[in-house]
């Protein structure tokens, strides 16, 4: 097998050092201000995804056994996508755990509805009052979810 090693030109390396530009702290502040304008739309998208998860995978969903694992995985991913606005609630981490659970169910080709239900209840609680919960209590809840889903946060 032929292995070629080389250093291709990195145009970005030259540009980023060009005269002018902005301080990193100002660039971050400008980006944060821009993102803030998307708060309302992002929260709406987050609640829509959470609502659809509950409708299709909640205890009351009539045909939840027939739902594809992939749908739950993608809906939980959508929650993560816009969850920077609710990072203080733990919703992002609970959604990551739910992704891990959906992935694990897909691998074994079997739903674990008790685990799904506990995630959906946790997401509902965290979305409603996660920011008000004592940090230790919230962390304990998330650790419980990780144990149920076998999600390992350090692996992303």
């Amino acid at each position: 097998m032929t292995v070629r090693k080389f250093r291709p030109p990195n145009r970005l390396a030259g540009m980023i050092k060009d005269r002018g530009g902005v301080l990193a702290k100002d660039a971050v502040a400008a980006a944060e201000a821009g993102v803030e304008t998307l708060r309302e739309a992002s929260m709406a998208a987050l609640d829509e995804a959470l609502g659809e998860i509950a409708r299709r995978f909640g205890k009351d969903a009539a045909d939840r056994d027939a739902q594809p694992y992939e749908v739950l995985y993608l809906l939980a991913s959508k929650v993560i996508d816009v969850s920077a606005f609710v990072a203080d609630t733990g919703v992002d981490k609970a959604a990551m755990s739910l992704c891990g659970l959906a992935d694990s169910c897909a691998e074994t080709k079997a739903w674990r509805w008790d685990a799904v239900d506990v995630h959906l209840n946790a997401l509902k609680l965290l979305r409603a009052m996660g920011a008000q919960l004592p940090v230790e209590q919230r962390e304990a809840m998330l650790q419980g979810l990780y144990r149920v889903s076998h999600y390992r946060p350090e692996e992303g």
Partner: protein
Amino acid sequence: MTDALLPSTRINLERATVLVLDDNGPSLDILSQVVSGFGVKQLHRAESVMDAQVLVGTKTFDLIISDVQMPVTDGIEFIEWLRREGGENNRYVPVILVTGHTRTSQIFKLRDAGSNYVVAKPITPKVLLERIFWVAREERVFVECDSYVGPDRRFKHQGPPPGTDGRRKDDLPAEVGDAHMPNLSDDEISNMMRPAKVQI
């Protein structure tokens, strides 16, 4: 290898042409807003790999930021295509992949896709700017072989795995061998470190 990004570091992305790819509209909006906030003027958005491939065929990019989980063709397949078939202008462009969660079955594929860095979602401007700064200044060699095209996947050279000879030409054995020559004397060491006048 690279200096850290400090709040007082000056960066200039005005001339950079950047492609952001994400199939989820709200997520793409956030990504675009962050990149624009960094001062990027030439920002191209794509909501599917197919759209991104068309853009890669017509523009020259300086940075690509792509989601991983996408229907039909995902970000991993896109980067694999880019590294092999993206054309000479774009094949070696720095790529940052963003992902909220990595499926167990995709961990190795993600490592082997050929991206320069993987950033966890939800993205924050500070982390993304740090990674952009990092990929702009990183010095890893590019590796091209039958099974992989992309930056060297080893961020650090820690020698070959224990019990192996290694595959790199410059791999040194883990065991230290006997000295080839006598130790330097104190005077010889002092002479090497003695200040000397130089003509500039």
